[in-house]
């Protein structure tokens, strides 16, 4: 039996065992003619069990702490055990460990638990050290190595989009931009990408208080057009614009999300319209989305697939 065959045999076996709800017992398997027990002595099996246990206990900490929410801010031991399928006695030990370390605390209601103050302390350390610009800068450099055009990292500040960082192309004819430049949110692909991350109510409120005037060359001033653009940004995950602020420029932007999932910034690639080809357009859209996803991951954004993260 080759290595791959053995692995798939083992995988199939464990699937079968799971389906019939049997407790997996050590199985003898041929491995190039060597019987399994010789390869895996009792000590080794114990070690593997111990390793699995230790990892599992810490996984359970994450699982338990992720149960709490604004709606379910306190839970009884029984609820914790049944929601996580952890035996009550084990859950009790984990809970008392977490309580001693300030990660859970007994809530006002008797017999109920809630998240402990130590999470606030740890979160504060993390918050003080999470620098959105720092997260982006090194990624901007690696992106420009793939495409020598200008990269702009814009963040939201109230109703404005501010350029927090930018990395200008080294080509002789290039789009230039400066960190610190700011403009209203509805102007340009970068701002509208951020705008698209807001709720419909917040977008409407913004559009009613913002002055929809022409800021540069061909700024979108019609709320209908802005809404259409917002909808396409939400649908496609990117946005393109041309000749809005600067007559001769093309740009594509993608949203950057925080660990909360909210859009906090946008990544933009911009270049002179004279260089625009279908090929460059597609490359810039692909790169801007990839880059935005990389920066989002640095900001703790995890797409919904992982419930505990």
């Amino acid at each position, binding site marked *: 039996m080759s290595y791959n065959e053995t692995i798939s045999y083992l995988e199939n076996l464990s699937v079968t065992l799971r389906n019939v709800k049997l407790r997996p017992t050590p199985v003898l398997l041929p491995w190039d003619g060597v019987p399994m027990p010789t390869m895996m002595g009792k000590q080794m099996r114990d070690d593997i069990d111990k390793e699995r246990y230790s990892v599992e206990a*810490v996984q359970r900490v994450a699982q338990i702490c992720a149960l709490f929410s604004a709606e379910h801010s306190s839970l009884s031991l029984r609820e914790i055990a049944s929601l996580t399928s952890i035996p009550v006695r084990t859950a009790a030990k984990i809970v008392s460990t977490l309580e001693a370390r300030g990660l859970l605390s007994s809530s006002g209601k008797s017999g109920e638990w809630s998240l402990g103050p130590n999470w606030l302390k740890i979160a504060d350390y993390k918050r003080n050290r999470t620098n959105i610009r720092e997260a982006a800068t090194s990624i901007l450099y690696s992106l420009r190595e793939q495409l020598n055009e200008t990269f702009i990292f814009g963040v939201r500040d109230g109703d404005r989009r501010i350029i927090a960082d930018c990395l200008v192309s080294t080509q002789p004819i290039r789009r230039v931009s400066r960190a610190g430049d700011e403009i209203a949110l509805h102007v340009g692909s970068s701002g509208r990408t951020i705008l698209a991350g807001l709720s419909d109510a917040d977008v409407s409120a913004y559009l009613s208080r913002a002055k929809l005037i022409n800021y540069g060359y061909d700024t979108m001033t019609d709320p209908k057009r802005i809404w259409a653009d917002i909808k396409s940004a939400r649908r496609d995950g990117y946005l393109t614009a041309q000749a809005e602020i600067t007559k001769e420029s093309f740009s594509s932007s993608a949203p950057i999300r925080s660990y909360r999932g909210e859009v906090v910034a946008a990544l933009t690639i911009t270049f002179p319209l004279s260089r625009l080809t279908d090929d460059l357009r597609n490359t810039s859209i692909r790169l801007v989305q990839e880059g935005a996803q990389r920066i989002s991951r640095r900001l703790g954004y995890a797409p919904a697939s992982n419930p505990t993260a």
Partner: protein
Amino acid sequence: MAKTAKSRRKTDPAKVPSPSRVRVIDRAIDILECFDETHEKATLQELSDRTGIHKATALRLLATLVDAGIVDQPDAGGTYELGFFALKRADTIHAASDIRQRAAPIMRQLRDELNETIVLSIRNGNLILNLDKFLTRQGIIEAPTIGVYTPLHESSAGLAVLSTFNEDALDAYMKEYCSGMTAAEARALRDSIAKPPEKTAIHNRTLAVAIVDSDGNAHAALSIQIPSGRIEPALAERCLKGLRKAARQLSG
């Protein structure tokens, strides 16, 4: 280094091993607590040295912590740092706190008006903890410690809460928490509780006002800590006025 970590574990009551606790979880939390204001990033070796946990065990624990998002390792094989898990838990604590939900917009507005750091503290019996802050946008800040319980008399926010106590309640508190103090220290403490905050502001640089519920219980406090380079009477006066107005909106 390993030795000091071990002896610290022995003396800190939170870290005393007990049969009703899970040792491996304690160890994982030892690793987690290596990251703080001054230790933003750490290598496996550093974490192992600081906690006294064997490198092989630390590696397994870290792999689990990284998998759960509690710890982060941005580059494979590189240094470790805190993950975003704690931020989500802190958001949950904030969202579940009624007073924090009501206070947040008021605090933000006050911060924008004064451009000083506004802190919300909540009381739990005779202890108080800083629950949330809105930071000033100025270059020099005095960062408050978030998420650590202290006895009421050890923080300005707690002193503001104590100032709402009647004589009997204050006597009981002093007896329980301040029995180790000399007579002079105890007198000084009672004086500072009795004094309205504007009298102490310039000296302590922290202004605090209690938030009182409909039963007259001070269950929270708002405070502003002004860095010494900025403190002057007119600013203290403006901050105090803002705090009082905000606390009035949140009281009752």
